[in-house]
């Protein structure tokens, strides 16, 4: 199995551990990732929401680079990158005029894109292409007894929703079961963390994070796993600010789903960059059999 890989800007900064653990897990599962050479920012929500046409153009440059690499699906780990890249494809397919403009804009940059690169989220690739059974067969350290809150975030299955339910997704729940851990019933699983509002309206974003943390705590989750860099950042790194606003004492470990999966596959905490987490993950590590 071979895919082109779009890491996204977070992979070089706040979510460097997501990138490291993604590569380690994919290697272990026989998934080959070919990083797009000289990829650029997809535009994300912030660019997209204010400069739409430009945003489609810069997003499509990445798709053009993927097309040049050959006939492979493009995999990304960030919910926002996934939505923006997939949306660019969909809008190009639905709107001939828009497609003509983007194709021409790329031509001016010496690139060409037909509109046919299939954009996939890593969760989709792992559960549907590799499959739960093949993952289970490679689990050497089942995480028995560990209670996990699977937090999908918004843009994994919304608005496109190709591989999981837009409101009540289940793929990560099943993946948690596959590695021998127990998914807690987590009604916030696809609720919003506030996204970029953490910078512009932080009390509102902190309120959303409070609800996510409170529910995970009420359901006695040992750890929250995420499939999105911004969700991880908001729910993990802002816990002290949530505690300050609400007088709470949350200190709940948060990690990327790839880090949890990696532990069960026998990959070391170091190779999964678990030392990058701000909230200590000792409780999770102690659930890993020696």
């Amino acid at each position, binding site marked *: 199995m071979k895919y082109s890989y779009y890491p996204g800007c977070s992979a070089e900064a706040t979510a460097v551990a997501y990138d490291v653990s993604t590569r380690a897990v994919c290697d272990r599962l026989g998934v080959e990732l070919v990083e797009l050479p000289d990829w650029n920012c997809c535009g994300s929500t912030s660019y997209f929401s*204010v400069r739409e046409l430009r945003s489609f153009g810069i997003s499509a440059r990445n798709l053009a680079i993927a097309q040049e690499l050959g006939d492979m699906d493009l995999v990304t780990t960030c919910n926002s990158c996934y939505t923006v890249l997939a949306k660019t494809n969909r809008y190009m397919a639905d709107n001939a005029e828009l497609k003509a403009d983007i194709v021409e804009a790329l031509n001016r940059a010496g690139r060409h894109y037909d509109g046919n690169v299939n954009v996939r989220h890593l969760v989709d690739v792992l559960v549907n292409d590799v499959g739960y059974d093949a993952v289970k067969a490679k689990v050497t350290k089942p995480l028995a007894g560990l209670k996990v809150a699977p937090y999908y975030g918004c843009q994994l299955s919304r608005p496109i929703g190709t591989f999981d339910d837009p409101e009540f997704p289940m793929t990560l729940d099943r993946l948690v079961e596959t590695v021998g851990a127990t998914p807690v019933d987590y009604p916030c699983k696809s609720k919003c963390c506030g996204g970029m509002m953490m910078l*512009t309206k932080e009390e509102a974003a902190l309120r959303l994070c409070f609800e996510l943390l409170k529910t995970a705590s009420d359901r006695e989750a040992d750890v929250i796993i995420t499939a999105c860099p911004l969700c991880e950042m908001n729910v993990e790194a802002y816990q002290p*600010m949530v505690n300050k606003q609400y007088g709470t004492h949350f200190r709940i470990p948060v990690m990327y789903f790839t880090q949890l999966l990696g532990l069960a596959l026998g990959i070391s905490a170091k190779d999964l960059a678990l030392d990058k987490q701000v909230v200590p993950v000792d409780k999770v590590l102690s659930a890993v059999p020696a």
Partner: protein
Amino acid sequence: MAQLVTKEDVSRLHKVFLEDMYSIPGGEKLKLCQQCGACSGSCPTSYLMDYTPREIIASLRAGMLDKVVHSNTMWMCSSCYLCTVRCPAGIKLTDMMYELKRLAIKYGLTDGSKNPTMTKIFVDNVDTYGRNWEVGLIGKFSLRHPSVPFKFMSMGLKLIAKGRLPLRPKSIKGRDELAAVTSFLDSKEAVQ
């Protein structure tokens, strides 16, 4: 910059806005809104909005543009798409909020709140380097909103210590390509 002062301003711009809203992909579905309120009831941030998404649609269709553009509604949208997947009429409400942001910026109708500043810095960042550089984003944003560094300082230092906030930007090689793409698309936008 356009100021919505007179009734003539409102009525002139209203036509532009509504036509623009109908012209975005799937935008004509706005006509099918039955005011059920599924959008407002689903929205995690509607409690912060001057007018809920349902009210925004009603106001737009009723010609009350001044209410729409002077509201904080589109700037309080967190882009979670829950309204979009739930709308029984298939209205792409999140895209509608994006279009309202774009129009508000275009006509100079933003109210100095933080969100327009942040998005502008984000866009400049990506245009300059080809990638988002978080420290640069927060730094420039802090210059405009001096309370920001105090609030985020302790967390920022922790992330820097963990190697999660690079202090230098990473530029792509194809910055000329990006400029060629964006300048061509700018010329297209200007024609529209």
